[in-house]
């Protein structure tokens, strides 16, 4: 009874007094999902053309290991994000490369996605959060290495539905939209993501999250040593 009382109290406090930062944290938890492995299907659309990639993803919510399965030409490429450190393995290079921090904000595989979109918690670490009319409004912390002037995070029942990135002149430049979320063992993960480059017409990347297996990811998956052979 006592335990139930505490839980009730905690829930009430959660509902009534959750700060914008806490809201962002829990929404990011749902966006990144629980520790899992899955296959992400990427469709990169360009005016008059499109390409599809399949990636195997291992993540514990903080760190992520991505391996390209298809197409054949790029198969074997692997990326590892460990906080600020980013590693890349390319079979044509035949070795693992530590990328400079700038790599995190670069688009990869010719898509509109950056590593930050799929991994890590840059929205929480680089930005200060306020809330306006149910929307989280993020502005860069002093000294934060982000080129954006403002980010708006639209929530729906605690889930991130849409992230809008603005340049420093108030113009929206990127939009990340989440489709429905799938419930996995008490946790959540988006089923689909759509990323649009708002500065160029016809530039869009769709991500479909499939073959999800929730559960602890072996630690070796987060070691650069295993980037080449896989984990």
């Amino acid at each position, binding site marked *: 009874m006592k335990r139930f009382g505490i839980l009730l109290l905690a829930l009430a406090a959660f509902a009534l007094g959750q700060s914008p930062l806490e809201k962002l944290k829990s929404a990011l938890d749902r966006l990144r999902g629980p520790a899992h492995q899955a296959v992400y299907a990427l469709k990169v659309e360009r005016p008059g053309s499109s390409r599809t990639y399949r990636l195997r993803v291992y993540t514990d919510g903080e760190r992520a290991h991505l391996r390209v399965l298809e197409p054949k030409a790029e198969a074997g490429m692997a990326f590892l994000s460990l906080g600020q450190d980013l590693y890349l393995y390319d079979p044509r290079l035949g070795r693992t490369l530590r990328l*400079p*921090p*700038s790599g995190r*904000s670069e688009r990869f595989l010719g898509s509109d996605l950056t590593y930050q979109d799929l991994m890590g918690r840059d929205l929480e670490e*680089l930005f200060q959060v306020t809330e306006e009319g149910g929307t989280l409004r993020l502005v*860069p912390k*002093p*000294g*934060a*290495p*982000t*080129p*954006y*002037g403002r980010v708006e995070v639209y929530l729906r029942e605690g889930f991130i539905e849409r992230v809008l990135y603005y*340049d*420093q*002149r108030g113009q929206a*430049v990127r939009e990340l939209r989440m489709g429905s979320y799938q419930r996995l063992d008490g946790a959540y993960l988006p089923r689909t993501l759509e990323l649009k480059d708002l500065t160029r017409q016809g530039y869009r990347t769709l991500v479909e999250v499939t073959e999800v297996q929730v559960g602890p990811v072996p630690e070796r998956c987060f070691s650069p040593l295993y980037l080449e052979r896989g984990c």
Partner: protein
Amino acid sequence: MSLLRLAWRNVLRQRRRTALLSLVVVYVTVAVLFLFGFLDGYGESLVEAYAQYVEAPVVVAREVWWQDPDPENGFRELPAVAHPLVQAATPRLSLYALLRSPYRVQGGVVLGVDPEGEKTLSRVPFKVSQGRWLSAPGEAVLGQRLAERLDVRVGERLVVETGKGALGLLVVGLVRAGVGNVDFGGVYVHLEDARRLSGGRVLATHLALKVPRGKEEGVAQALNQALPEGLRAQGVWELMGPIRADYEGSRLFYVPLLGLFMLLAAVAVVSTTYVSVRERLREFAVAESLGLSPFRLAAQVALEAALASGLGLLLGLLLGYALLWYTSTHDVFGPLMRLSVELLPESGLSEHLYTALRPVYALYAAMVVGLSALLALLFPGRLVLALEPTRYLKGE
């Protein structure tokens, strides 16, 4: 005195002739003054650009940093620099970084500075055309043309990244210094931010020193005697890039040319003197028979040549210095220099070039007078020395 008066009378006797040959001397004098003023003005503009904008009057760094200017070769502790002529010193940390605006990315050298210390020896803090100079960490000041190229404005954030870290810095000011390297490539950040971007292991890469104008090389040499091993000081001329060669090359090219001009002017003076001596040989013969020594007469001829060219020199100095005064106070060469800066933005050229105006040019130009006198002594003077008075007096 009477020799001078006599020579003066003879010079004035043929006013047209004197005026004509003076014209040659006037022209050469103006050319000498202008060219020296231009060359020195060019040199001064380079020294000013490098001493006060691009580098510093004297820079002290580790020997290895001069070879490989990477922060890892910087100072782990700042050296003490003592010299009576050092008026100010400030540490700087230069590092290569990637500059990322929301729209563009470019590599460049970022200079970490102490905002207040920088004001003691650099003109850059005073050339902020938009916004303000650095005051605290987290800020950046950019060269105006670089900001245009990166498409970043005052109040916006610029991401500066190195292999060791990344920072988003608020652009608080844009500099318009009129010096290519600053306007096209200048990135100034707080020393503390630069230390963070370099990995935090070094305090600075070099020490910038302010010393009086003209003493740069001397102080650098003196410091090199006293600095601990492994450190080396360089004066502004050594710090200058390849553009120094253009200046030195121009001097090597134009100074002999001016020498030739002066020689030709002296030849013109002497040919006039020659005619005038030949016309007056009888007069000289009389003077010699009255007891004047031939050497005195030859000296008189030389003096006449000197006086005639001296007249031209005076007028030339007047015109030349007037021209130099104008070009040293008006930006006549501005358009030419601006085109040069566009062509060679990384050469440290300044958009303005004002000619120098130094009294010593008068001395250089006066050489034409000496040269005329000397040549007059050698040629028409010889006519007088070889004169046989009796032949002339007989009317032969």
